[in-house]
Every structure is written in C-alpha cells, then in structure tokens.
C-alpha cells in the first residue's frame, strides 16, 4: 500500500532519525572554536553530551539522514532499496531550521548529516552541500557539523563539503572485499577508499598550510611509546594485506592491485582548482572517522584489528568505530533475525582500539592468525600480559612509561602519576592505590622495591583463574544489558582510575 500523504515535519524527523540511528559515531569533539557576534554557536574540543538515549549512548548531535531514499540495496541496511518503507526527504531549509532551533535550546552541539543515495552519489552530496552551505552562511551557524561522504561522489563536491564540515567520515562498513561484495553489491573498497584518501590529503594540505604537522594530533603519551602505531618507526600494516592477507585461504590475486592503488596518494581534483584562499579555510579540522559492522560477516577480530590499524596509519583517521550488527532484514546472506547483537565482541574491539591509540600496542601484539579472536573472559591487555609473563613482574620504582602501561591495572593517568611521584618520594603499594592503580589486577604483575604485594606465584593458570573470577560477573552484565548495567569503557576494569564526570564524558566522546 502506498502512502500518499507527505509526512509532516515531526514524522519526517522520526523517520529520518530512526533510519540514521545505527550509525554509531555521534561525537562533537576534536575542534575548539569560539563564538562570534552575529553568529550562533561554538565548539569545544572535548565534546559536549546533551543527553543520553535509552540505549545509554550519548546524544550530542542531531543525527539524521537527509533522505532515506536509496538506489542501493545493501543487505544489512534498513533503507535498502528492496525494503518497503515510507520514503521521505528533508529540504535543506527544514533541516537548517531544526538544527538551529534545537541548537538554541541547548539540545544539541550540531548536526550529523548522513544520507541514503538519491539518484546518484554526487547528486546526494550536492543536496547535503546545499544544506551545510545554508547553515554556515545564511544561518551563521558556528556549531559542530559531521558530514558523511558518499562513496562514488565527485571529488569536487567532497572538497566543498570538507570546507563546511568539522568532521567527515566514509563508512568502511565491512572489513574485507569479499564481505562487501556479498552484502553491499553496489559498493567496493576502492570506491570507499578513494574519498577517504582524498579527505586525508586535503586535511593534510590544510594542516600544513597553517603550520601544523601533516598528521592529526594524538595523545601526548604516544611520544614516549616506541613503536606505537602512529610513529613512523612503527610497523605499518598495509591495508591491502589487512583486507585479504589473513583470510583463511584468502587469495591474493590481481584484484588486490585495485585496493593498493588509491591509498593516500593525492587525488587530482578535476575541474576548478582550489583557490589559494581555500587552502586556508579549515578542511574537516576535527578529522576523519569511519565505522565497521561487527558480526554480520565471518571476519575474525584479528582481521578487524589489522584493518583498524591500517586505517589509522594510512588514512590518519581520528577514530574507527565498531557497530555490533543488529539484524534488521531477513536475508540468506545475513545472520538470523533473532541473533543478539555481539556487544561483548564490540566491547573487546573498542578496548583493543584503545590499546592501539593510547598504549603503544600493535594489532600483531594482541592477536595473530593462529589466535585470531579476543578472549571472552579477559580484556585484551590482561590476556596479552598473561601470554607474556616472561616480561613480568615489572619494578614500579624504575620502569619506563611504556613498561608501566603494559601492566594490567595501570592506565595512562596512573602511569603518569607514578612517574611524577617517584621523583619526590618512595612508592609503596598503598600510595599506588591512591594514584589510581587497580591493585586487584596489577598485583600479579609488579614489584615495588623488589617485593610483590603478596607472595604470589607468577604462574599463568593461577593468575588467569584469579583474574577471570573478577571479570565473570561483569561479562554477564554486558551480555544482558537489559537487566544489568552495560560495561562502558571505564567500568570495564580497563581504565583504572575512577573517572570523574568530566573524564567519562571525554571517554564517550573519544577524547581521553
């Protein structure tokens, strides 16, 4: 049955925000911009959360689709062409008004604009461009804008949007070419990587033009971590290898060349060359992000993490997000409709992502082709430590920052505090506690002036038993979020210091 009546604004908003909600990245972080007389809005690098939805996730931006019309038929997507749904679109004016009025009421920090593909990718992005252009020029909006780039759109229109948006993202969707072919027949890795490469290049050009480093800023601790994924000496994962190299029996045939090709090489911008003035306008100053769907396809954690690392290294992404697959459509290529979203797996991947970005780990430290998935019962760092008991115990009074970070129960902040404190005085176990070290876990891995806290055998089975007991109850909660509190990145025994309110917000927005 066709519904003739054009939905009113509220109905449109319901439809188009409902259709956008599966996109996970809703942060407003990464750029500081002061307000200005005559304009509306500012932006805080730490990000601001305005509310929390029923699923416990932070609401920071008005996350909507411009339209849910789509010419593609991605099998996992609620908006796929073959689904019978009410289709509608916002006009640019409608979207501007809602953004502005929401912003003034302090509901949101800005707009997260995504879209189904209407007519073709370039046309779709032109509509998005018109909205953002109006918002920035006619409505003088200085708040945060996150814009999706549609693979396959002309480079010119991606460029124009980059000058209006704070952050851009192209969704990776699925980590291997095979999966993408299977579930998103209209898309290809090549088409996804091309805009990603272009955006990376233009961010870099802009950064250099204002005297910054070519690459995005990373957590300051990384400079003390030899071999971290961002350092040039760190081992670089080739994206092409990450895509195929570890698939069981994955062929590395001729098609691979297509993926290696478009990587970060500068994309020639056809048509109008950017004017010199353009190069000084901020281009996506909050950087670029992406997201991958977890659990719709057979990839293992090792493949996912390799791709993640390669994306950070080759595309200088600010964040990679993971989204536990939620079955919305029935299809023989998809998990059954009653499949529970793999929240624990998603959680482990975020923990590992943290280890890559803040702790100096590489994907290959954590997993390998022969051990391709994370331990259900232990967080990735504990798991790693237990497999490397030969490196422990670590002497707290002399260990380097990097060594301290490898200890389960010691996080960035507590490691930093230890370094400061031991300059001024003698450390003991109780002072470690006040510095935020979680002794319950750290005690198996450290000595303080030559002594362990208790007389404990440094023995894998014993420690594993101790540590998993701590974690079991929390894991059950994670898998049963309706009845029990879902673990978030900081009460997962991973970030050790009890975070302040401010910290927890930052973690949510990925800024810690």
């Amino acid at each position: 049955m066709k519904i003739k009546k054009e939905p009113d604004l509220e109905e449109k908003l319901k439809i188009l925000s409902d259709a956008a909600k599966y996109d996970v990245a809703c942060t407003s972080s990464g750029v500081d911009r002061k307000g200005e007389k005559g304009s509306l809005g500012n932006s805080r690098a730490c990000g601001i959360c305005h509310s929390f939805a029923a699923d416990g996730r932070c609401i920071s931006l008005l996350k909507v689709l411009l339209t849910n019309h789509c010419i593609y038929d991605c099998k996992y997507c609620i908006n796929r062409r073959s689904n019978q749904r009410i289709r509608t679109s916002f006009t640019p004016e409608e979207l501007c008004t809602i953004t502005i009025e929401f912003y003034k009421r302090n509901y949101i920090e800005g707009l997260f604009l995504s879209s189904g593909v209407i007519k073709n990718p370039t046309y779709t992005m032109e509509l998005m461009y018109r909205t953002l252009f109006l918002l920035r020029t006619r409505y003088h909006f200085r708040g945060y804008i996150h814009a999706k780039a549609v693979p396959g759109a002309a480079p010119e229109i991606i460029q124009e949007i980059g000058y209006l948006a704070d952050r851009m993202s192209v969704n990776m969707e699925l980590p291997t070419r095979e999966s993408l072919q299977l579930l998103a027949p209209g898309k290809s890795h090549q088409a996804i990587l091309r805009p990603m490469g272009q955006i990376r290049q233009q961010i870099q050009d802009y950064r250099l033009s204002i005297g910054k480093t070519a690459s995005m800023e990373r957590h300051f601790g990384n400079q003390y971590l030899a071999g971290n994924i961002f350092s040039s000496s760190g081992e670089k994962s080739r994206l092409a290898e990450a895509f195929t190299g570890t698939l069981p029996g994955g062929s590395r045939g001729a098609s691979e060349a297509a993926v290696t090709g478009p990587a970060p090489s500068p994309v020639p911008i056809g048509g109008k060359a950017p004017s010199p003035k353009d190069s000084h306008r901020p281009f996506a100053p909050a950087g670029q992000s992406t997201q991958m769907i977890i659990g719709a396809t057979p990839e293992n954690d090792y493949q996912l993490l390799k791709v993640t690392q390669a994306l950070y290294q080759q595309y200088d992404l600010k964040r990679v997000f993971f989204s536990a697959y939620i079955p919305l459509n029935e299809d023989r290529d998809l998990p059954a409709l009653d499949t529970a979203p793999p929240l624990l797996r998603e959680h482990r991947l975020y923990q590992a992502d943290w280890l890559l970005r803040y702790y100096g780990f590489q994907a290959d430290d954590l997993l390998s082709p022969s051990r391709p998935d994370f331990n259900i019962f232990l967080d990735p760092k504990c798991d790693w430590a237990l497999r490397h008991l030969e490196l422990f115990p670590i002497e707290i009074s002399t260990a380097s920052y990097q060594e301290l970070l490898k200890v389960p129960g010691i996080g960035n902040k507590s490691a930093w505090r230890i370094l400061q404190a031991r300059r001024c005085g003698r450390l003991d176990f109780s002072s470690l506690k006040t510095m935020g070290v979680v002794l319950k876990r750290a005690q198996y891995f450290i000595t303080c002036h030559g002594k362990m806290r208790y007389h404990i055998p440094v023995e894998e089975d014993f420690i594993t038993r101790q540590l998993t007991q701590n974690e079991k109850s929390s894991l059950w909660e994670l898998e049963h979020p309706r009845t029990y509190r879902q673990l978030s990145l900081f009460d997962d025994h991973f970030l050790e210091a009890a975070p302040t309110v401010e910290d927890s917000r930052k973690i949510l927005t990925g800024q810690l």
Partner: protein
Amino acid sequence: MVVFTCHDDFESMMTCIYDAWAARLGHSNIKLRVEPIEEPELFCEYRHIHPDPEKYRKVIRSIRSKISENAYQDVYRASMHWNPDKLDIIYRFLVLGFAMGPRVTRMLGEPYVAALFDLDRKVTNESHQFREFIRFSRLNDQALFSLIEPKCNILTLVAPHFADRMPSENWLIADKKRRIALIHPSDKNYFLTPVTPQELAHMEEARKGDTYSSLWKAFFQAVGVEARANYRCQRNFLPLWYRKDMTEFSR
C-alpha cells in the same frame, strides 16, 4: 562565640570575611555563616553583616595579590556551594593562605584546604553538567528562557559558556530556588537580577507551549536503539535528579 552572618551572595560573603577579620576577636573565637541561620545556638552572639563594595573589593584584591589568581577563582567557586559551612571554610582557608602565600593551594594535607577543594569540585562538576543539560524554551520569536534548580549557585559559572555560544540572542536562565535570573540581551553583557514567583510560574507554564519540544522528544525517542536498550547505563550518565527540567523527560 561570635557568629558573623550575611546573605548568600559573593559580595556579602567577602564583606563578612573582612569584618570578621577586622573584629580581631581571635580566629578560634568566631564563626562565619551564610543566612538563613536555621537553629541559632544559645550562647552565640550573631552579627549580621551588610555588603559593602569597598570592603568587598579589598578582600578580592588581597586574595589575588597575596595568594594567587587561582586561589581567588577557587574561593569564588567554593562560595557558590549550597553548604552553609562554606563561608567558614573559605575564611579558614584564607587565614592560612595569607600566611602561606600561593603555595597554600597545594597544601592538600590541610583540612581547610582539602575542604575548600571539595566544595570547588562539586560546584565545578555541577556547572559542567548544567552546561550540557540546561534546556531553553521559546515562544514564537521571543527570548529563550530556561528554568533550573541547581544545588549550587552555578548561574555565573555557566554564563560565559552560553554567552559565547549565543552572543547575538536574547536569553535568560532562571534559578527557581534562589529566585535569580541571568539575563543576556543580544550583543550585550549579561547580568543577574531577581525574579518573582509570578515570573517563574509564568515561565513554567510558557515552556509547555514551545512547539520544538515535541520535535525534540520525537527525535529523542527515535534515536535510541531498542536492541541495545540499557536504562541502567542511561541512568548512570544522566541521574534522574537532573531530568526534572529537561525537555525530553517532561510530560
């Protein structure tokens, strides 16, 4: 015991500190309290102190020059706490501060320094949360207004943020409990002013008429993913107490 009392505003408190100090009764023989005094004690003498701009300025100047700018800001924030003991804590902190100079702010082993920082932290956290959770309403094209009921007096602490965010809008934030409002006329500086219960009641009624609130609620409902529903987690981040003036949780 002599108890110096004053109204719960910054100028009065600073004047009160000045007079308590100048009375030279010995620090251990006096107490400072903001009004109202709930249960006067029998053997105390109460002296109400009126605000005096001259004394107020002198106290501020001394804190800034003899201790530090940081200490001044800490004291300012601590003075916005709801706890009536705050004035006495500030006084004792300053006694120590005038003797020790700038390093007093690092002397966390001192009970009054630690107590001051506790006050400060609570006020800072609350103003942070209100920066996020304040909701404005608006009728037609009139000024934006917000009604809040914070535990601490955070109006002047959130003001710079909103002034930067909406410099060219007319807006106001009213504290229902303290009956004061922060008024920001478009393109001008903001200021504080008392509000009457009638005005508050009027705004309370008027915010039901904002047409965008139903759009916002529609969005808020739509954006949560049912398959991940997690009310416990939501409640951790957004305690029920904050929700009473938030549009998306209102009926």
